[in-house]
């Protein structure tokens, strides 16, 4: 079936809107970005000439301004990936296990409550946590002072490690529900008859999890891990709005610093090169995770 000229025309007509949009808004910017990264390209005065890989060189040469900017952002972003991925994966798994063990009639209510903050935008989340944790008149300080845990207000947003703690709490509160939903769905599909067999063997809750549950949700857990690493790598809104990159640029994320190079320094060429290097680093890390997981399967 589906032969002949009229079908060919139909098929082309149907696929072409997507292909046109894809070429215009993805492939063209990708190619254009690579081209820009080989030029001294100013955001306001435009192309100032071909310079080959000079942009990449200066980003990767220690001591230059752009190197410092890139490494500062990369270091902060990697730090955030390291501190945020374990809680985002492990706590979401714990929440999913709690939901899974609740009586059936309570499940939807708690699931909705744990997931509801995911519907809030990053900017509203930032507004809330900016004022919960504000050093001057923030609610958390007011409460801690009134019950006598602290005598001086903590400068949550202006001192480390408090600034990262605030960003981390905000991020966990905001996004953990999504990972939890993926885990809940995976747990729903775990073969229940295996639990009965484990019960007969007298297995405890922990050994049941290790021997029955974990092997069946491992693939989902890996998928969640990858998604979480990507999300944490793209850290932007929380640090832009809650800490504005401070204190002393310690929460400037890589995307923030790329934006700085493009808009504050006007260096679109440098910014495009930084974005491409960042893309490569992300692909390397994700590829490495795939490699580890496939190796473990064999």
């Amino acid at each position, binding site marked *: 079936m589906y032969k002949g000229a009229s079908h060919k025309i139909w098929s082309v007509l149907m696929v072409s809107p997507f292909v046109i949009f894809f070429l215009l808004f993805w492939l063209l*910017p990708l190619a254009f970005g690579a081209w820009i990264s080989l030029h001294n390209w100013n955001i306001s005065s435009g192309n100032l000439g071909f310079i080959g890989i000079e942009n990449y060189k200066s980003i990767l040469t220690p001591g230059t301004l752009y190197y410092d900017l890139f490494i500062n952002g990369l270091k902060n972003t990697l730090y955030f990936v390291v501190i945020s991925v374990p809680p985002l994966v492990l706590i979401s798994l714990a929440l999913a296990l709690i939901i899974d063990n609740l009586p059936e009639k309570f499940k939807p209510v708690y699931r909705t409550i744990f997931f509801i903050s995911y519907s809030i935008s990053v900017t509203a989340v930032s507004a809330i946590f900016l004022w919960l944790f504000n050093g001057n008149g923030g609610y958390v300080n007011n409460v801690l002072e009134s019950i006598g845990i602290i005598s001086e207000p903590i400068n949550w947003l202006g001192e480390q490690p408090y600034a990262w703690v605030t960003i981390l709490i905000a991020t966990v509160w905001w996004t953990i529900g999504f990972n939890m939903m993926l885990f809940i769905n995976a747990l729903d599909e775990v073969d229940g008859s295996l639990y009965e067999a484990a019960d007969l063997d007298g297995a405890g809750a922990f050994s049941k999890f290790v021997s029955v549950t974990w092997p069946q949700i491992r693939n989902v857990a890996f998928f969640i891990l990858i998604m979480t690493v990507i999300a944490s790598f793209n850290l932007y809104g929380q640090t832009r709005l809650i800490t504005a990159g401070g204190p002393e640029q310690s929460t400037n994320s890589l995307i923030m610093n790329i934006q700085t190079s493009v808009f504050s320094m006007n260096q679109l060429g440098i910014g495009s090169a930084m974005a491409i290097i960042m893309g490569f680093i992300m692909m390397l890390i994700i590829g490495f995770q795939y490699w580890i997981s496939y190796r473990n399967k064999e």
Partner: protein
Amino acid sequence: MKRSTRKSLPILIVATIIAILFLLPLIWMIFTSFKTLSESMASSSILPSAWTLENYVGIFSSVTDAPILRWLFNTAFITAAGTVLVVFVDILAAYSLARLNVPGKKVILGMVFAALAIPGIVTLFPAFYMFKTAGLLDSYVPLILPYTASTMGVFLIYNFLISFPKDLEEAAYIDGASQWQILYHVIFPTIKPVAMTLGVITFLGIYNDFLWPSLVTNSNDMKTITLGIATLIQGANFVNPAKMMASTVIATIPAIIVFLIANKYIVKSVTNTGIK
């Protein structure tokens, strides 16, 4: 039954404590929006001692600084237009790729898969520069059209279709149905669940986007609610938590209502995104 409820009491208590922790920031946001400025900064009580509507009055009367209804309208328009466009364009493309032997199929599919692996940051600033050069900044065009370049939808629907039997379509074809009739009467009902999934993912993505709208808009009137809240954080409301929370409540309540109504589909969509 009773025994099982008693047995699950400890876990119910744990779940309830966590639920309260999850809800506290939202409860605090709502109550703070009804506090006076001085109370919002000094009080450790979550409830206002004196309720006031001055924060809401202040927001709705400062329409030049914070045209919050306009921002809500922009968001409603952009998310609706963007989501419908993406779902429609992706269904057509995925159908053509999965069923119609379109010329260049392998190349197109190859690009779809490759694009999934390349992080979005790489195209962000060049795309901004293209819109700037084309003189299209501060219009609805860059706020809607670029979302159509995402290949996630084509990927999801294509995968769904190739694992779905063609019997119905072939029967309809033999009965003399036109291509459009097959699409409308057979394909649309078939792919409805995955199309809903794509719709929810796309809606949340556009609604929550902050960096891209901040690049392509200048005027207050073109901002989305998500971007508008950021503007307030960085500007007028920076030192006023009560007013800040009032605007955040206005921004958040519609999203939470949509979320509660669409809860069922979101749950399904999260399942569908993954794994299979």
